[in-house]
């Protein structure tokens, strides 16, 4: 029935006139010979080879689209890794702050007692007459405790905020995942199939392989555009958050650096210098090992600088992708900076293990 209708339509067209249908040209004469066999009588004009070129172009575009989704996956992985490294770092920095404070208090206490005893000796007072000293030590200890408790509470809040930021990148990772591409691909395939069954033989024309390639190209484009749109929509708040994170990271690193110095100096004084200068006593057995460890306990300045750049690098990578600057996007330096932050955590953990064991 459909063929008969089409045959009538062909009959109305003047002879010797070529009719263009999709990317083929049918000669009216041939068409009149019978619609059922029209495909066998198609005359492929030279420009039909364009189809091959278009197909190659689509393949190229497919590669480009594939490369477009990958940066989003890399960014989301880096963001998640940053969140974990930053949280580990703030926890360790809190620990080393407490240790530095304890060592400082202990050192101060022994100095104060020594000075008070000297004073008592000079003024011929008895040690139990040193009442004001206890009050002063008590004030110092309580004051330090309050400050440290405040610090811990603030760091816990900072960790929550960092976890929230990492949550965004985890969400982005889900949206940039391969399963999303599969869903989009399934949708595009459905559209292709609908077009194939309802229009004039697109499926026959493009064959199965072409459809798949085309679908993949479209999938890549849709997925990348979707991710770009999401990043653009949230760029303002994310950039703001990462700016503050950058400040927080720099602040915590400089604090940890100072505390690290205090721990090292105090331990050097108590474990190495004091036993060494004390006359009339043999050096403890562990003195050699302690000295060796403390001399080697060192944070590379380059590592600190690199770690401090982690938030900044992540922010820049986010901006590049949200603005579609794929050429500028390079995740490798950001990954190295996050790794530096993780290495810093390991150094602080080693310091903590040492002072916890011997301090």
């Amino acid at each position, binding site marked *: 029935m459909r063929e008969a209708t089409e045959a009538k339509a062909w009959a109305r067209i003047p002879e010797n006139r070529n009719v263009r249908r999709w990317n083929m040209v049918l000669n009216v004469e041939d068409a009149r010979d019978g619609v059922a066999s029209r495909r066998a009588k198609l005359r492929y004009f030279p420009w039909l080879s364009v189809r091959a070129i278009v197909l190659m172009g689509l393949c190229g575009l497919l590669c480009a689209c594939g490369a477009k989704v990958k940066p989003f996956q890399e960014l989301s992985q880096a963001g998640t890794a940053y969140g974990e490294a930053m949280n580990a770092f703030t926890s360790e920095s809190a620990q080393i702050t407490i240790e530095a404070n304890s060592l400082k208090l202990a050192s101060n206490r022994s100095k104060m007692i020594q000075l008070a005893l000297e004073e008592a000796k000079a003024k011929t007072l008895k040690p139990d007459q040193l009442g004001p000293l206890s009050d002063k030590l008590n004030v110092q200890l309580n004051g330090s405790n309050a400050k440290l408790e405040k610090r811990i509470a603030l*760091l816990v*809040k900072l960790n929550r905020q960092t976890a929230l930021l990492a949550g965004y990148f985890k969400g982005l990772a889900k949206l940039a995942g391969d399963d999303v591409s599969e869903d989009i691909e*399934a949708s595009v395939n459905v559209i292709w199939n609908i077009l194939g*069954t309802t229009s004039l033989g697109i499926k026959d024309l493009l064959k199965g392989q072409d459809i798949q390639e085309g679908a993949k190209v479209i999938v890549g484009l849709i997925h990348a555009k979707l991710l770009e749109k999401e990043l653009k929509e949230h760029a303002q708040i994310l950039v703001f958050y990462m700016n503050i994170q950058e400040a927080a990271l720099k602040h915590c690193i400089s604090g940890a650096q100072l505390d690290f110095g205090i721990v090292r100096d105090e331990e050097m004084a108590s474990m190495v210098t004091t036993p060494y200068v004390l006359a009339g006593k043999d050096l403890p057995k562990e003195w050699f090992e302690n000295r060796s460890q403390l001399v080697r306990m060192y944070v590379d300045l380059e590592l600190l600088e690199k770690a401090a750049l982690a938030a900044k690098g992540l922010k820049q990578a986010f901006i590049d992708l949200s603005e579609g600057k794929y050429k500028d996007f390079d995740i490798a330096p950001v990954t190295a900076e996050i790794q530096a932050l993780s290495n810093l955590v390991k150094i602080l953990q080693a310091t903590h293990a040492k002072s916890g064991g011997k301090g």
Partner: protein
Amino acid sequence: MTLEELRKTDGYMSSPAYKDALKGKPLDVRKKANDLEMQTHLRRLDLENVVLENIVASLTEHDNDLKEAIADLSAARKKIRRVKEFLETLGKVLEIIAKVLVVL
């Protein structure tokens, strides 16, 4: 270097030269130096807490915006799934219609 000169240098309190210079000094000088060292340490903790407090306050002020952004990502993911399911259903319906038309 004298104690006064040493006090003008950065991080003088932890420098060995300063500690050496204090040795043998009168009792009140050493007491004053010890008090100053502890006060500086506690003051540093205070200042760091103030900076941290400002940082956390800034982040907390906008954490609802970030939560919304996370919810948007989740919604976008669900939207894709819904579109896919809708299209699949549509495809099946059209396939049935096409089969019916062929039969007719």
